[in-house]
C-alpha cells in the first residue's frame, strides 16, 4: 500500500469502528469492546507506519476533488509533514490507551457502547484535523470534536454538574468557533484557496490583505479549543466527564487541536506582529493564572485541568515566539504525561472513593493500595514539574530557549517581537515555580495523607494498570529524543541551554522545596489525632470505577483544610484562585445575563406582539364565521323569502334594463 492509502486509512478506521459500534452496540454487545479498541489500535499502528515512511523529510501532499464547489475549491487533501506524522502517532497511541483503559474503567457502564463509539469518532475527527490538507475538511473534524466533547463530557448526564459542564464546553468553544469560521473564510478569500499549501504559499508571497484581522479571528477559535484565556473556563468544568474522556480531551485531541492548528498555520500568524503579541500575552496570562488556580483547587481532576491549561499556555507561548517545533515538542511530551496523570487520577479516585484532595489527605496508605498508579503518577508529576531527565523538562526547556532567543533578539529573521519573547520567558519561569509547587502539593496530599487507613477495593483491572506503565515510558524518556525529533520539525535545535535549564530547574526545585517546607510545618502543627469531621463518601465504593467517579461528582467538597499548603502559599489570593478568579461570574454578567434578557425580550415579542397578530387573524375569521352562521336559522321560510326577494329584484332589474335598452 502506498503511504497515501495508509494515511487515508488512519482517520477512516476509527470512524468505521465508531459507526459499527453505534450500529451494533445494542444488538451485539460482545463486539463492542473489540470494535472500540481494534480500529483505534490499527489506526495507531498505521500512523506509526506513516510516520516511519514519511521520515520527517518530504511532505506528503495529495488531494482529490469530489465535486466542484464554486469560486473557492474544497479538496479532500492530505498534508503530512513531520508535525502531522508525529501528532498522529501521539493521537493514535493515547486514544488506544484511553480505549483500553476504558474497557476496565467503564466495565459495567450501561452506556459503554455509545461511549466507546463516541471516543472512536472523537479520535477519528482529531486524526482528520491532523492529516487534513484543506482547511474546510479540517473544520469538519474540528466541529465533530466539539459535538463529541459535548456528548462525552455529559456522559453522566444524570448529574446536573455533567449536564451544565457539557453545555458549557459546547457553548464556550462555539463562542470561539464562530470567529474562527469567519477567519477561515477571510483567509480563504485572501488566499483564494482552502488548501494549506496554497495558503502558506500566499503568505510567503505576501498575498494576505488583512493578516492581523485573520490571525485574531483564528486566535479566538484556537483559544476556545485549546482553553486559553479568556475562553478556558470550560476545561475545569469538563472534569464532570469520565476520567478517560478527560485524558483524551486534555492530552491528545481537543485542546491539542488548537495548538496544532496554530503551529500548522504559524506563518499566517507570524505575518502579523500584533497577533503574535496578543498570543504571547494570552499565553502568559493563561500560564500564571491557571497555575495559581491549580494551587487552590480541591478536586484532583480540577488541579490537573488547570495544569493542562497552564501547559497549553507554554505551547501557545512557544508559538507566540515563532517556534512551532518547541510547541509541538511540548505538545507531544505533555500529551504523554498528562494522559498518564489523568488515567492515574482515575485509579486514585476509584481507590479513595472521593475526588477531594482534602479527603485524600486524611487517608493513609493510599500509595500502598494502588502501587501502579502511585509510581506512574510520581513519574508524570516529575515530568509536569519539569525535573530532569523527565520528558517535561526537555520540552519546556525548548519553549524557554525559544523565548529567550526571541527576547534577546539573537535569532536571525525571527518572526515575533522581542516583547513577546520577554513576556513568555518571564511568565514561563514564574509558572515553572508554581507548577512544581502544585505538583508537589497534589502528590503530598494524595499519597502522604495521615489518618484512617484507606479502604481496600482490591486490585485495579489489568487493563487500567498496564496502560499506566505504557504511558509512563514516554513520560520518562521522550525528552531524550529531543536531538532526534528536531529533524522532523523546522530544524531548530530543541536541546536545552545551560542558562534556562539552570533557571527553570532551579525555580522548580525552589517551588517544590517551599511547598514541602510549608507542608511539613502545617502537618506538624495539626494534631494527627484531631477529631476530623466525618467526610462524605460515595455510596458504592466497591463498584465499577466509572460509577464511583459519577457518584463522587455529587459529593460536597469539605470545608477549607488548614493543613493545605496551597492555602498558605497563596494567602489572600486563595479564595479568588479557587474560584477561577471569578471569571465565570464575569461571563455571567457579560454574556449570560444579556443573552437571557434578550431571550426574554424575544419571548415577549413573540408571545405578546407576534401572537397578537396571529390570534387576531384567527379571531377575525372566527367572527366572520359567526356572522355567517347567524344567517343559518334552519327556517325554510327565511331561506325562501331571501330567494324570492332575490328573484324579484333580478326580474325588476332585467325589465328595467330591457326598457332602458329599448328606450335608448
Amino acid at each position, binding site marked *: 500500500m502506498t503511504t497515501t492509502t495508509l494515511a487515508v486509512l488512519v482517520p477512516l478506521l476509527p470512524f468505521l469502528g465508531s459507526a459499527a459500534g453505534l450500529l451494533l452496540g445494542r444488538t451485539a454487545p460482545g463486539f463492542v469492546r473489540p470494535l472500540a479498541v481494534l480500529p483505534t489500535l490499527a489506526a495507531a499502528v498505521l500512523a506509526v507506519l506513516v510516520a516511519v515512511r514519511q521520515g520527517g523529510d518530504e511532505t506528503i501532499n495529495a488531494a482529490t476533488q469530489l465535486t466542484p464547489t464554486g469560486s473557492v475549491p474544497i479538496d479532500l487533501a492530505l498534508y503530512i509533514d513531520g508535525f502531522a506524522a508525529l501528532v498522529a502517532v501521539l493521537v493514535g497511541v493515547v486514544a488506544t490507551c484511553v480505549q483500553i483503559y476504558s474497557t476496565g474503567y467503564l466495565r459495567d457502564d450501561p452506556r459503554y457502547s455509545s461511549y466507546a463509539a463516541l471516543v472512536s469518532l472523537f479520535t477519528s475527527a482529531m486524526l482528520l484535523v491532523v492529516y487534513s490538507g484543506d482547511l474546510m475538511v479540517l473544520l469538519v473534524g474540528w466541529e465533530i470534536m466539539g459535538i463529541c466533547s459535548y456528548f462525552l463530557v455529559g456522559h453522566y448526564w444524570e448529574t446536573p454538574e455533567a449536564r451544565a459542564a457539557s453545555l458549557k464546553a459546547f457553548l464556550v468553544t462555539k463562542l470561539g468557533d464562530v470567529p474562527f469560521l469567519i477567519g477561515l473564510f477571510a483567509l480563504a478569500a485572501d488566499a483564494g484557496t482552502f488548501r494549506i499549501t496554497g495558503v502558506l504559499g500566499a503568505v510567503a508571497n505576501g498575498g494576505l490583505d488583512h493578516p492581523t484581522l485573520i490571525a485574531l479571528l483564528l486566535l479566538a477559535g484556537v483559544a476556545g479549543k485549546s482553553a486559553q484565556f479568556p475562553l478556558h473556563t470550560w476545561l475545569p468544568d469538563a472534569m464532570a466527564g469520565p476520567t478517560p474522556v478527560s485524558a483524551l480531551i486534555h492530552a491528545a485531541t481537543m485542546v491539542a487541536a488548537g495548538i496544532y492548528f496554530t503551529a500548522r498555520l504559524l506563518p499566517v500568524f507570524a505575518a502579523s506582529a500584533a497577533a503574535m503579541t496578543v498570543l504571547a500575552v494570552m499565553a502568559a496570562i493563561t500560564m500564571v493564572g491557571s497555575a495559581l488556580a491549580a494551587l487552590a483547587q480541591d478536586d484532583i481532576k480540577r488541579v490537573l485541568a488547570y495544569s493542562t491549561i497552564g501547559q497549553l499556555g507554554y505551547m501557545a507561548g512557544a508559538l507566540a515566539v515563532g517556534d512551532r517545533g518547541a510547541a509541538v515538542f511540548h505538545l507531544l511530551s505533555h500529551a504523554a504525561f498528562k494522559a498518564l496523570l489523568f488515567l492515574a487520577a482515575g485509579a486514585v479516585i476509584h481507590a479513595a472513593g472521593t475526588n477531594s484532595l482534602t479527603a485524600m489527605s486524611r487517608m493513609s496508605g493510599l500509595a500502598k493500595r494502588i502501587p501502579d498508579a502511585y509510581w506512574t503518577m510520581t513519574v508524570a508529576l516529575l515530568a509536569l514539574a519539569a525535573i530532569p531527565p523527565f520528558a517535561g523538562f526537555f520540552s519546556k526547556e525548548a519553549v524557554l530557549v525559544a523565548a529567550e532567543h526571541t527576547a534577546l533578539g539573537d535569532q536571525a529573521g525571527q518572526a515575533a517581537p522581542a516583547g513577546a519573547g520577554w513576556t513568555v520567558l518571564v511568565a514561563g519561569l514564574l509558572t515553572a515555580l508554581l507548577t512544581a509547587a502544585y505538583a508537589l502539593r497534589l502528590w503530598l496530599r494524595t499519597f502522604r495523607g495521615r489518618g484512617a487507613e484507606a479502604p481496600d477495593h482490591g486490585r485495579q483491572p489489568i487493563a487500567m494498570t498496564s496502560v499506566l506503565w505504557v504511558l509512563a515510558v514516554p513520560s520518562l524518556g521522550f525528552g531524550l529524543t529531543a536531538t532526534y525529533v528536531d529533524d522532523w520539525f523546522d530544524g531548530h535545535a530543541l536541546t536545552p541551554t545551560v542558562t534556562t535549564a539552570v533557571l527553570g530547574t532551579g525555580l522548580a526545585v525552589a517551588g517544590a522545596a517551599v511547598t514541602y517546607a510549608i507542608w511539613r510545618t502545617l502537618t506538624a502543627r495539626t494534631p494527627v489525632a484531631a477529631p476530623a469531621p466525618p467526610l462524605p463518601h460515595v455510596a458504592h465504593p466497591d463498584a465499577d470505577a466509572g460509577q464511583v467517579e459519577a457518584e463522587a461528582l455529587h459529593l460536597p467538597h469539605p470545608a477549607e483544610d488548614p493543613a493545605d499548603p496551597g492555602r498558605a502559599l497563596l494567602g489572600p489570593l486563595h479564595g479568588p484562585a479557587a474560584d477561577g478568579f471569578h471569571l465565570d461570574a464575569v461571563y455571567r454578567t457579560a454574556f449570560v445575563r444579556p443573552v437571557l434578557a434578550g431571550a426574554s425580550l424575544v419571548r415577549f415579542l413573540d408571545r405578546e406582539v407576534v401572537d397578537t397578530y396571529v390570534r387576531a387573524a384567527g379571531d377575525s375569521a372566527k367572527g366572520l364565521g359567526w356572522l355567517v352562521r347567524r344567517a343559518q336559522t334552519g*327556517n325554510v*321560510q*327565511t331561506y325562501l*323569502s331571501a330567494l*324570492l*326577494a332575490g328573484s*324579484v329584484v333580478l*326580474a*325588476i332589474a332585467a*325589465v328595467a334594463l330591457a326598457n332602458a335598452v329599448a328606450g335608448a
Partner: protein
Amino acid sequence: MILAAQAAAEAHGFLSPTGVEIAFLLVGLVTLGAALVTVTTRQLVHAALWLVVALGGLAVEYLLLTAEFIAWVQVLIYVGSVVVLLLFGLMLTKAPIGRSPDADSGNRPAAVAVAVAAAAALVWVVVDAFRTTWIDLDGAVQGSTKVTGEFLFRHWVLPFEALSVLLLAALVGAIVLSRKKKEGER
C-alpha cells in the same frame, strides 16, 4: 291576427266594459278576497274552506274564458279532492279547531314585503305589456269537452300517459310515506 286583435282592442276601451268583463271582475274580486282570507285567517279549517271559495271562483273564471272542461276538472279535482285531502291532513296532524294565535310565523314582515314587491312588479309588467290586448271570446268553441278530448288525445297522448305513470308513482309514494311502520321494521 294580432293586428286584428289590436284593432279590436282599440275599439274596446276600459271605460265601456262588456258584460263578460264585469262578471269576470266581480268573480275575480271574490276570488282574491277568498284567497286573502285563506292566507290570513287564524282558523285553520276556515282557511281550507275559504280555499274552496277561491278555487271555485277560479273555476267560474275558466268558464268565463270559455274553458269549460278545465273549469269542471278544477271543480272536481281541486274542490272535490285536494281540499278534502287538505282537510284530512289538518285533522290527522291534530290542527287546533278554532282560532290559533300562532298561525303565522315570525317571518311575516319579510313575507309581506316580498309579496307586495312581487305583486307590484308582476302587475306593472303585465299591465305594461298587455294593456291593449283583446281576447276574442267569440268564434269557434275552444274549451269544450269535445275539443279538449280531441287535442289531448291527438297531440298530447304521450305526455298524458307519462303523467299517468307519475300519478301512479305519487300514489305509491304517498302510501309508503304515510304508512305506519310496524314494530321492528326499519
